[in-house]
């Protein structure tokens, strides 16, 4: 091949690779972005139907009820202004505790219950998941301030 043809092939090849990548990225982006909502927004029904989203806040003290025979747990996530009932089946993370920050990913069903497919608690006791802290702040919850210092767990971050 002549140098010019070669360069043309290289450029076309590069552009094609970029184009394919861009198409993949945009496609995947569209379907896989997970939006975050606060319990207040969920209560106002501002959330999308039939789409996974994340909700964060505090596990309302006294709201955790385990069903006797199975691994199903009911609890409420609150931002101080509103609390939303959540149901989850499975093993909860170590750091899941009443009165502590939590982020759940799932959908709201017709009965107004948030069915969580995943409960995230990748934080330690002096750190609040950012989404949960954001929810508390928006609702003006007093715990928002003390947990909002950015003192993250260096441990988890060291990964």
């Amino acid at each position, binding site marked *: 091949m002549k140098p010019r043809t070669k360069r043309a092939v290289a450029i076309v090849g590069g552009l094609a690779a970029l184009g394919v990548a861009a198409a993949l990225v945009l496609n995947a982006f569209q379907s896989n972005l997970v939006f975050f909502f606060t319990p207040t927004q969920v209560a106002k029904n501002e959330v999308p139907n039939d789409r996974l989203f994340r909700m964060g806040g505090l596990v309302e003290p006294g709201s955790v009820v*385990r069903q006797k025979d199975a*691994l199903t747990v009911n609890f409420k996530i609150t931002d101080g202004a509103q609390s939303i009932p959540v149901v989850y089946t499975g*093993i909860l993370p170590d750091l899941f505790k009443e009165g502590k920050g939590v982020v759940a990913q799932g959908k709201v069903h017709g009965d107004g219950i948030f069915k969580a497919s995943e409960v995230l608690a990748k934080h*330690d006791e002096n750190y609040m998941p950012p989404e949960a802290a*954001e929810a508390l702040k928006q609702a003006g919850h007093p715990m928002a301030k003390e947990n909002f210092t950015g003192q993250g767990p260096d441990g988890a971050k060291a990964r």
Partner: protein
Amino acid sequence: MIPEIGQFALALALALAVAQAFLPLAGAALGKPAWVATARPIAIGQFLFVLLAWVALATSFVNNDFSVANVATHSNLRLPVHYRFAASWGSHEGSMLLWVLMLSGWTAAVALLSRHLPERIAARVIGIMGLMSIGFLLFILITSNPFERLLPPALDGRDLNPLLQDPGMVIHPPMLYMGYVGFCVAFAFAIAALIEGRLDSAWARWSRPWTTAAWCFLTLGIALGSWWAYYELGWGGWWFWDPVENASFMPWIVGTALMHSLAVTEKRGAFRSWTVLLAILAFSLSLLGTFLVRSGVLTSVHAFATDPKRGVFILGFLAVVVGGSLALFAWRAHKVGLGGHFSGVSRESFLLANNVLLTVAMGSVLLGTLYPLVLDTLNAGKISVGPPYFDAVFFPIMAPAVFLMAVGPLAAWKKAELPGLWVRLRWALVVALVCGIAIPLLRGKWSPVAAFGLFLAFWVFAATVVQVHGRLKAAPQPTLLGRLRANSASWYGMTLAHLGVGVFIVGVAMVKTFETEKDIRMAPGETVVLAGYEFKFTGTREMPGPNYAALQGIFEVRKEGGTEVIRRMYPEKRVYHASGQTMTEADINATITGDLYVSMGEAVENGAWGVRVYHKPFVDWIWGGCLIMALGGFLAMADRRYRLATRRQASVPAGAVTAGD
């Protein structure tokens, strides 16, 4: 006293770093041999003072000196001594000190192992690394003093995060930082070449072992982190596409591209500007990773905005380094030149495709990592980009790269013939297709993902066999031993590393498709069956630990239908005394064909527990593959030609070296 010695040593190290940056660079520019000659001793001196500071910090941790704020917040009287030692890099301040220690360590290594380099080039490399040291030492002294005193001293410390009290976590950060920071050497070589206005095969040969070394450590570091997440987080995942993971993975991808681009620059004199750009990019991504992890932006951009000192410093430093080096690149790249020509089908073109694909893959990871941060900064909403995005984007981009990876080593430099390649590789293709289709069918579950993954893996294995066979047959020596010896260590290293990629893919494909799991409530005496194994929960027992109390579940494992207990497993629930935090410790029975994994959730009632049981076929191949890749890298570094006195070869003009690998 000891912390003050540490602090003082850091300040002295900074003074030496200034000298290390200024004297050699100015000496090289002004032609003053006496200044140039100071580079090596100053670099070693700087390393010794940083080492002294680090020893002071480690001593404070081991001695439980709770008058040091850093120790008081990250250690505890009851913490076992090896974890107290490791806690010295468990904090933000300590890990930055480790960063600088690694940086000065690499600089000292360059100073000691660069006797064969022309004085002026070695001095410039050391001087540029000195500039980096200045930045990071200033960062520690201004924003993150690890020796800050606490008045009055605490009686006891707050304890190290229990997640980090683990042997894997003890070695993970040093390995990872060795790799991260190691790309600074390749970066310094690239900048020195730009200043020098000269970049040839000899230059590439000097940079290669350093780049490969950094890449090997980074590979090991990332693999260790992934392995740790697998057994420690208690839910059996091995990679989460978490921003912190991505921060270390992006330099790895570009580092991989850089290693291959350097090979072309050394052997053929081509890709020169591109190599320099990749070297700049790899280190810039290391710095970006440091910014992401260390500034607090990942916790929350708003938290970052309330205490912006650290973040702004690193961001400013990043801007100066990236901006400065790109400006230098724009100004000087034409001097470096583009390099030799090659045909559309040649080893060069395969490596070019590899580079393009790797760079695009890195870009997709970068986008997924930064996009949520950008949106959040603009107050445009909070989103997260989850693993499905990365899976959907990353694997399709990497699949052709892996396919070509198997072909590349068989193609000739400069110009290769497709028909010849087809003749050599058609049986490999058949073997790969058969294995890819047959293995999922034999395991009784058809899955296109598994079939394609296994096809790629066996394609790599089979093409490697073809390649090794061809190489040995072509060697002129009469005996097999002689023929084995005829090939260079770097060729063996490359082959081994490519096999590692195949092993890795087998692990990923098998575990993604054939893993089975059960979340179940189990009362003592109950049994669960999974993947042909029977797990019987017989009860729990108390097990005191050094700084925690553990409750151990006892599980008997039998073959399904069998009576003989083949294995007892003891997952734990630990409560750490100092923090009161609960931790799940999974028990894993690892074999080469798969892991049995048991972890306990919460106690339900009457001695019953929520239990999680997994069977993870071939999961250890994932880390095994990484280990093989790293071993391949180390083997390649051991090649004789990197150790030969290069003065002789430096006089050979670029492109004249056309050895077969």
